């Protein structure tokens, strides 16, 4: 059976373009461009430009009112601010690295493990006071945020995640 071709061919096998094919192609191309454009515009529209979300930078202090070996939990930013035994500061995200629930600090530990001071209510991940994983399903340690001293207050920036060597603020 002879196959029907979308476009008729010349005797030399090249596609023949007549007026109808020419105009249809232009029409189809124009429609395609408009559709693609509307799709792009719609996609852009779907991303909000102004968000009324909580500020990334917040202050805690004054420092000398915070006892060594204590923690402050900031529920708005979901952040633990910790002063350790030596009096150094660091800030840990309270957002579980498994699927984003808010973890809870419990000084006496959880699940019979006194080191598991941070625990997640959703699927039971446990972390130590440095935010390292003790028990899954989480596989990544809690995020550490940049913490700096400004006059007598601590400034924490939740937009800036830092590595283990940079997490400690010595005062």
């Amino acid at each position, binding site marked *: 059976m002879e196959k029907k071709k979308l476009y008729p061919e010349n005797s030399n096998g090249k596609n023949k373009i007549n007026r109808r094919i020419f105009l249809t192609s232009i029409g189809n191309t124009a429609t395609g461009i408009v559709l693609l454009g509307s799709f792009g515009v719609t996609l852009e529209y*779907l*991303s*909000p430009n102004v*968000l*009324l*979300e909580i500020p990334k930078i917040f202050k805690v202090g004054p420092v000398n009112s915070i006892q060594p070996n204590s923690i402050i939990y900031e529920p708005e930013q979901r952040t633990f601010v910790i002063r350790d035994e030596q009096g150094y500061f660091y800030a840990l995200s309270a957002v579980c690295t498994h*699927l984003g*629930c808010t973890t809870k600090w419990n000084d006496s530990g959880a699940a019979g493990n006194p080191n598991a001071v941070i625990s997640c209510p*959703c699927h039971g991940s446990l972390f130590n006071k440095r935010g390292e994983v003790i028990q899954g399903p989480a596989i990544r340690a809690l995020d550490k945020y940049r913490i700096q001293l400004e006059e007598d207050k601590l400034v924490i920036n939740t937009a800036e995640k830092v590595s283990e060597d940079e997490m400690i603020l010595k005062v």
Partner: protein
Amino acid sequence: MKILNWLAQTKIWQSIFRTKLPISTNLDKSLVIFNSLTLHIHPVKVRLRAIKFSYTFYLGMISFFLFVLLIVTGILLMLYYQPAIPHAYNNMKDLEFVVSNGSYLRNMHRWSAHLMVITVFLHMLRVFYKGAYKPPREFNWIIGIVLLIITLLLSYTGYLLPYDQLSYWAVTVGTNIVQYIPIAGEKIRFLLLGGNEIGEYTLVRFYVLHCVILPLFMVLLIALHFWRIRKDGGLS
């Protein structure tokens, strides 16, 4: 009876219903279907086996019935619900404790939703074990899979609307799972939430998905699903 007979003779009746009454012969019966919109989805004749309970367990029809129930109760719930923080949660409490029969309606909607997920799934199992997915019905199986996905998405988007603790954390966990999609994950999460965290925009987005976009797709696909059953030669 006399009034009915007279009614059936009037011009108004005859302009609405094309079939001449009374319906007595088999031809008359087939004309009822033949002369109506139903013809597009329902044939004039069906095999006895196709309407036997033990063949389909009516699971598809039960799913469809639940869907209709969900539309009706859903529209009624919309009259007392505002997709805004903190109204959403308070509206739900009002529905439970203040609005007459509100908790009845809400429970109808909720239980039907749970049931529909189960019946759609069982319907799929039935189709699978009866081999009803085989050609020429393979495309209807694909439509069915999309229907299952839409059913699950409707469940999931509806879950946020009460805006209680369960809602909040289920959506936190769910959108974080979405985030693990390669390349586009972060962007899809941002678009779903309308931001980086669950907030006002998230609630509105889920509301629009739950009440407009997903039901619309569902209705279109169910129509296609039914029409295909007929065009594929009725139930297998």
